[in-house]
């Protein structure tokens, strides 16, 4: 390998002043005709054009500053990873089909029809190289929410059957079995029982009436089952009337990540219905970033009216409980830094919650340089962690995170997102990076003061 630090490759064959387009890799799903694919992509692009997206797509200045905010571009210097370039086809469709001057764009062919070759090429840009982390949205001088647009552009890609296989399979499994990792209600019940035994904690399941509905993410159920126990401990300690439900336990939403609004709605409605059924006043979301975006901010829009209950991320719940004295924690003698899940902090607005919790833990907290809202993404968000072929790129990008974390010289790295945790674990393994990575929720659960 000739890569020295990933940024400056020793490629002596490279053409001067030109970039070498990486080989176009693309997957296809289904057996549609080419034309049908293009049509589908176009139709589902167009469906998204409302006054908000239109102003965004019309407002771009081509200043290119978003490139400087994107970890994929910063780490590779590949101009194609410029965030707004990832939306080029979406923009092209907008200008031709729905913009104020669409008629002229079509009449004079100022913007060509999107082609299958382009769509295939953009698969890599819209999926493999975008975690929808939204850092670019903050640098844009026009204030364009680029990340939000990427999510919408994915609708067209999904419907055209032009998304990475692994993501498609994961999303499909989620739609069919209710969980991206194929965790059925029975399996969930098993795991919950196991954890209840293992950690000697009472875990209510399928209670008919409860104030709080707790939900989990598949990654936790599968990979970090102690989270189930931790959730239970905290909710018990707070004295909540709460329950897990087998008819609504999966918080992740791969319909959203992959770009299938139908599946997204299905997954969201399961949770909403379960909560309504038990008369819950609150859904506590697990340590998962995109689940927060899917239910907290997009849930009501899927439902078509305001939700009859509140939605909180577990970090928000903990902060609230600690601030109100509903739970108490022992002081922990360690130094920690905190990795903000993009969808919870930067895009979700709950940045302060985790910091409140950390304050209560009394640890030596070391904020990363430009932590919080400007945090570098773990590299695995937006479904990227599921895309196998994107691994080398994701690892390359992770270097930024590593540097940011190491600079704090904290003993431990905390986060509040199982997806982040998974990509940390994977990248740690890849780099043989020995760093203690933990869950904020688990730290709280382990240090609860009993009498509270």
């Amino acid at each position, binding site marked *: 390998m000739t890569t020295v630090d990933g940024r400056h490759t020793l490629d002596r064959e490279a053409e001067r002043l030109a970039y070498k387009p990486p080989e176009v890799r693309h997957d296809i799903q289904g057996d549609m005709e080419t034309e049908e694919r293009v*049509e*589908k992509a*176009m*139709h*589902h692009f*167009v*469906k998204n*054009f409302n006054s908000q997206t*239109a102003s965004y797509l019309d407002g771009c200045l081509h200043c290119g500053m978003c490139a400087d905010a994107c970890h994929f571009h910063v780490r590779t210097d590949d101009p194609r990873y410029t965030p707004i370039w990832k939306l080029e086809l979406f923009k092209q469709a907008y200008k031709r*089909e*729905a*913009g*104020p*001057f*669409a*008629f002229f764009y079509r009449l004079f062919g100022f913007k060509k029809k999107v082609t299958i070759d382009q769509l295939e090429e953009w698969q890599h840009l819209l999926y493999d190289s975008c975690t929808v982390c939204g850092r670019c949205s903050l640098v844009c001088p026009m204030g364009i929410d680029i990340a939000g647009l990427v999510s919408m552009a994915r609708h067209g890609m999904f*419907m055209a059957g032009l998304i990475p296989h692994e993501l498609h399979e994961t999303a499909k499994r989620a739609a069919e079995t209710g969980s991206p990792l194929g965790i059925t209600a029975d399996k969930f019940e098993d795991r919950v029982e196991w954890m209840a035994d293992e950690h000697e904690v009472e875990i209510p399941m399928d209670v008919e009436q409860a104030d709080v509905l707790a939900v989990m993410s598949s990654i936790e159920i599968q990979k970090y089952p102690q989270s189930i126990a931790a959730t239970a401990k905290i909710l018990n300690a707070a004295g909540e009337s709460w329950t897990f439900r087998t008819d609504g336990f999966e918080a992740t939403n791969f319909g959203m990540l992959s770009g299938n609004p139908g599946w997204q709605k299905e997954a969201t409605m399961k949770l909403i219905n379960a909560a309504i059924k038990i008369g819950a006043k609150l859904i506590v979301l697990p340590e998962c970033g995109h689940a927060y975006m899917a239910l907290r901010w997009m849930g009501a829009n899927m439902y078509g009216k305001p939700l009859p209950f509140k939605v909180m991320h577990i970090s928000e719940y903990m902060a609230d409980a600690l601030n109100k004295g509903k739970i108490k924690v022992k002081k922990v003698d360690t130094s920690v830094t905190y990795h903000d899940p993009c969808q919870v902090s930067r895009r979700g607005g709950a940045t302060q919650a985790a910091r409140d919790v950390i304050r209560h833990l009394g640890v030596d907290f070391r904020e990363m340089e430009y932590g919080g809202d400007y945090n570098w993404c773990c590299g695995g968000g937006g479904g990227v962690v599921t895309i196998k072929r994107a691994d080398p790129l994701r690892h390359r990008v992770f270097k930024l995170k590593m540097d940011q974390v190491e600079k704090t010289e904290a003993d431990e790295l905390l986060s509040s997102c199982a997806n982040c945790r998974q990509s940390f674990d994977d990248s740690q393994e890849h780099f043989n990076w020995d760093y203690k990575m933990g869950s904020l929720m688990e730290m709280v659960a382990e240090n609860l003061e009993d009498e509270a």
Partner: protein
Amino acid sequence: MKTIPTLGDILQAQGVSRRGFMKYCAATASLLALPPAMVPRIAQALEQARRPSVIWLSFQECTGCTESLTRSSSPTLEGLIFDSISLDYHHTLQAASGDAAEAARHAAMEENMGQYLVLVDGSIPMGNPGFSTIAGISNYDMLMETVEGAAAVVAIGSCAAFGGIPGANPNPTGAVSVQDLVKDKPVVNVPGCPPIPMVITAVLAQFLTFGQLPELDIHGRPVAFFGQTIHDRCYRRPFYEQGKFAETFDDEGARKGWCLFKLGCKGPITYNACATVKWNAGTSFPIESGHPCLGCSEPGFWDKGGFYAPLSTGNFGSGGKLAGAAVAGVALGAAAAVAGRRRQAKYTKEA
């Protein structure tokens, strides 16, 4: 053909000394905007110059141009130039009238065929020949007849040069300028409303001295006088650069003599010599008296959007049309949005 005395002869006959003549030559050099080093050459040329015959035609005019030329108290040095020409016809100034006057004109034309100068003030009505006649002859006919044997034509004042006030919108008489009609003779324009008398004199002096017409700009005006804008030669220019402007005619800026740009001064686009030659024997010029330049020596000066409208003001026309454009814009935008929504609806159904 009568013998034409040289200017030297005339001056000698009047008992003008050589020193006086030198003064005269220096003034002429000054007049022609020639460097003082040219004085000996001018002296030499003038001594041998012969008195040309001049026919002055007045058409649709106000006599202001003639006034301008004759009002200065005589005898002046410029006046001497006039003494050295033979003004054979000028129906305002000459004693003769009617047939006798016309006879004088014809006589001058015949005697000096191909040699004489025609000076014209006033514009020529093309709408109806009856709008302006002299001795029953239409202005057009008289002009064309007279310029036939002329050496050159000098259009005096903005009316003769560009149509001037008679030619201003809506131009009821169909007034045109001399250069619109005279195509086969050299035409020198000395515009201004009125023109600076010295400039008229200078053109004659040039013809007299060197037997040729001065160098002209794109509007047919002598470059020596119309080569620079009022703005460029204006003593108030430094105030323009400093951003100090009179806002009204009676404010502090006006009293302090600041730039009159905001009061509609057309100095920047007006080519004339007022700022240096000045008026009333060098006393002052309009800006010095506190009034913005009207741009009277420019074509169409009457129709330039108002004397007191600043030069950089755009002429946007009626607000109604702008409102119309706004309505059209909203309509087009709405139509585009509806079309976009339709396509969306169609696609949603198909998808």
